[in-house]
């Protein structure tokens, strides 16, 4: 478990984009639309479910300044993950509140908005199915009556009715295990609402039509997905679309899907002009591709000594009106809800359920966050049932070297158990001072997530001045990977300083294909591709230097911007001279590299409807929360928060600690007060910052962080993604600590004061809970 802290890639290298961001000079996509740009708006559905009888844009088209109008037939293709079920425009049917029906571009935003008010839409109302319970009830109205005719992009899943996708796991015989005489059976049901990402830059795009191709500048995490989806819905070749990405003002997974881009592209082609489309804050909130609301039922058969001989669960995930990311995420319950612990046998069903509500999406650690909440609360209830200390139970049962995962993968290395020990070592010698009258609770939770690997490519061009240009499809969303880990990796490989590494932001005309920035994969996948590109550059550089220095390449080292003869500092020559020599003899030096992981296999026949069989790079986290509950108000105050995070190797420890602080605070919002409720119209009650409550400075504490290094990883230099996972077990740690403080079971998030008070008093909350 030792890592070489002196590796040249490891440093607290500061971000190069900080000065411009601090001076307001950074131009995000939302800042780009100048006077030459048309401004677009979307006319969105104001009901959750209806048949569209007529859309008349005659009057809108005659409004001042209007340059182009687009409706369903302008972008007829369907897109999706697993199944192509989603149109970009509602054509004949409205399936959710906020669904786009018409797009309008005008000279000014005010003109576009005025024209939008002149669009006539005749609809015939249909019953709206707003909750999963309604959607799954016998005889429920089908949200997609034509579901069977949709193009299937990935085979092998159960589908039908209002179930967009079903994934399942069956390992071993749970039935006989539950029937064993020596086990206690513990059951629980847990519910969570939606969480909104609230990136400060909303989704935004600027599109133009140049030389017969679309150019899309967009605030996205996934330029190649935008290219693929835009071309699919427009019915054109993907190569007709170029995507470039300016600085992104926050993503958190919301921008892991293509959303606004096709509308702007269509309007740009129709108007012959550059078109800007930016969500208003209300649109951004009301159509947020949230972390989905979900219901988790879980039961376990446990022996008196704490062995989990069987676990069964059913997870219902609300995907909203279209499948989206939730289709893929049905896979992940196997590795989160059925993660963390060694299980004798497993039976799991996960359903993505259609409702007439705004579609959901990906959000930092996705369903891992609530599955960890449910699993860890369930674990504490098991501990209560068998009267075992929760920490001791976890020490005995967490997965370790050789443990079998839910789908049969074999884990490598003992990681969680030593992380638990490290967490205990972080505790202060003295218990915290708790003011009189407040209820104190503490809890320690474990979590399992993964790095979403997949394909990446990179090219490194060595410049005459000794700098290097790194070309990838990476984008800077704020996490710093493009500013820190990638240039650090390239610099270390080439023996130059990171400041001499130019990092180009994604341009699908320049970079190779890529899965995108998310799932903790940038440092791992793009980093590995970059390192591979550097290997080619190194080989060429050393071959050229070998001629100049009359020394075989194996005896040369790259360091400090020079090529040195091993063991004889100062004897070599500068990289610039070697590049100059190479340009005359073999041509400029460049290299390219690529990366993917073929995937870890599951046990045959064990998993159905899964997008991945097992997790290539597991990432573990241990969190501990100390808090107080005010018995009269139900208000929760965080006293201390500790994290031990499995990072593989920390390339930039300071930046990772900042990611942990930020991720934990987003998790505190989820655990305590970020709540979305869906009203009878099928829209969210929380339309903006006044009602959707984000954590403020006074709500948070400095998170104590211990970075656990040395766990096995496929990542370059042993790295794992570090930005995704800090939010993973916050809901779990807070919920378990609140349960310990109030002595009542906690089964629902967020723990708003009314909800905590209801638990304390045994009385119901005054208003209905989030629709599930």
């Amino acid at each position, binding site marked *: 478990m030792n890592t070489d802290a002196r590796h040249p890639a490891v440093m607290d290298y500061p971000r190069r984009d900080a*000065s411009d961001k*601090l*001076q*307001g000079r950074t131009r995000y996509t939302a800042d780009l639309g100048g006077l030459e740009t048309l401004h677009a708006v979307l006319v969105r559905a104001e009901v959750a479910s209806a048949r569209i009888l007529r859309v008349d844009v005659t009057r809108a088209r005659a409004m001042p300044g209007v340059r182009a109008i687009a409706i369903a037939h302008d972008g007829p293709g369907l897109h999706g993950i697993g199944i192509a079920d989603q149109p970009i425009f509602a054509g004949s049917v409205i399936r959710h509140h906020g669904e786009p029906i018409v797009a309008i571009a005008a000279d000014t935003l005010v003109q576009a908005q005025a024209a939008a008010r002149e669009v006539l839409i005749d609809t015939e109302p249909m019953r709206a199915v707003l909750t999963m319970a309604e959607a799954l009830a016998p005889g429920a109205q089908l949200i997609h009556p034509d579901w069977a005719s949709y193009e299937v992009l990935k085979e092998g899943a159960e589908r039908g009715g209002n179930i967009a996708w079903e994934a399942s796991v069956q390992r071993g015989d749970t039935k006989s295990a539950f029937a064993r005489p020596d086990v206690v059976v513990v059951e629980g049901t847990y519910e969570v609402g939606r969480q909104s990402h609230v*990136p*400060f830059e909303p989704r935004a795009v600027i599109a133009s039509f140049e030389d017969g191709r679309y150019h899309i500048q967009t605030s996205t995490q996934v330029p190649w997905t935008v290219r693929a989806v835009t071309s699919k819905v427009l019915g054109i070749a993907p190569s007709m679309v170029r995507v470039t990405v300016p600085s992104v003002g926050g993503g958190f997974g919301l921008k892991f899907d293509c959303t606004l881009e096709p509308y702007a592209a269509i309007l740009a082609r129709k108007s012959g002009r550059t078109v800007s489309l930016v969500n208003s804050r209300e649109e951004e909130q009301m159509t947020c591709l949230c972390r989905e609301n979900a219901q988790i039922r879980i039961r376990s058969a446990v022996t008196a000594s704490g062995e989990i001989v069987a676990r069964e669960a059913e997870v219902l995930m609300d995907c909203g009106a279209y499948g989206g990311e939730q289709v893929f995420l049905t896979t992940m319950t196997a590795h989160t809800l059925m993660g963390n612990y060694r299980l004798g046998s497993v039976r799991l069903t996960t359903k993505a359920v259609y409702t007439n509500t705004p579609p959901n999406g990906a959000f930092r650690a996705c369903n891992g966050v609530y599955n960890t909440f449910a699993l860890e609360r369930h674990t504490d209830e098991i501990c209560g049932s068998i009267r075992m200390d929760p920490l001791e139970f976890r020490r005995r049962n967490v997965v370790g070297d050789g443990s079998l995962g839910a789908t049969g993968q074999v884990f490598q290395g003992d990681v969680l158990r030593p992380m638990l020990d490290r967490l205990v070592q972080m505790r202060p010698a003295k218990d915290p001072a708790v003011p009189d009258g407040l209820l104190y609770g503490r809890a320690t939770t474990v979590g399992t997530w993964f790095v979403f690997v997949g394909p990446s490519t990179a090219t490194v061009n060595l410049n005459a001045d000794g700098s290097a240009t790194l070309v990838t499809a990476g984008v800077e969303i*704020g996490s710093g990977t493009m500013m820190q880990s990638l240039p650090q990796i390239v610099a270390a490989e080439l023996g130059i300083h990171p400041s001499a590494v130019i990092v180009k932001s994604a341009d699908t005309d320049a970079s190779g294909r890529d899965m995108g920035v998310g799932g903790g994969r940038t440092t791992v996948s793009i980093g590995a591709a970059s390192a591979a590109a550097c290997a080619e550059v190194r080989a060429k550089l050393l071959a050229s230097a070998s001629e100049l220095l009359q020394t075989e390449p194996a005896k040369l080292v790259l360091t400090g911007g020079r090529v040195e003869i091993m063991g004889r500092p100062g004897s070599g020559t500068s990289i610039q001279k070697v590049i100059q020599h190479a340009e005359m003899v073999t041509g400029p030096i460049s290299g390219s590299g690529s990366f993917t992981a073929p995937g870890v296999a599951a046990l045959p026949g064990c998993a159905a409807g899964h997008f991945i069989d097992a997790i290539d790079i597991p990432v573990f986290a241990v969190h501990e929360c100390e808090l107080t509950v005010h018995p009269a108000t139900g208000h929760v105050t965080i006293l201390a928060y500790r994290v031990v995070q499995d990072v593989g190797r920390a390339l930039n420890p300071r930046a990772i600690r900042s990611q942990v602080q*930020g991720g934990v*605070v987003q998790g505190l919002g989820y655990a305590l007060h970020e709540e979305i409720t869906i009203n009878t119209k099928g829209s969210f009650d929380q339309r903006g910052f006044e009602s959707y409550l984000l954590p403020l400075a006074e709500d*948070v504490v400095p998170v104590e962080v211990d970075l656990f290094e040395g766990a096995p990883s496929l990542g370059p230099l042993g790295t794992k993604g570090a930005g995704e996972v800090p939010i993973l077990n916050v809901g779990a740690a807070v919920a378990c600590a609140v349960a310990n403080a109030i002595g009542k079971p906690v089964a629902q998030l967020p723990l708003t004061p009314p909800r905590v008070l209801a638990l304390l008093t045994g009385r119901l909350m005054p208003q209905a809970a989030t629709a599930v």
Partner: protein
Amino acid sequence: MTVNLTLNGEIRTFFGDPRTSLLDVLRETFRLTGTKPVCREGFCGACVVHIDGLAVPSCLRPIGLLQGASVTTIEGLAQVDALNALQLAFKDQDVVQCGMCFPGMVMTLSKFQETNPTPSRAEIKAAMIGNICRCTGYERIVDAVLSMQSRENAQ
């Protein structure tokens, strides 16, 4: 309606609807996009500017009320290519992430430091009530502000 105001030290003239928010005037008329539109309701603080010496959200100020006012935006806070001490602390301590909240954060805290040059941790947090950050979890920002004191005290 015509409004004359001093913007980043220069006299500028706006002609248009007096109800237009200062935020929109800055971004659209003068193309000063450093002032960020995020919530447009006064909660997030990303659009904070200095008006006659006070740090206020520009989204809540109609331009018609600003005849003769002196407005400083993030672009006019320091010399071109120079950072003030607070910006420098944020940069040196690698506090910035997506960066959308920082222009407003800098405008609020720069003004706060004028009246309270040696604030406590709690006072800094209280001063940030009107500035929301979705990325950083705040504490590194507070650390950076505090570090300026220890540096000054050390001198």
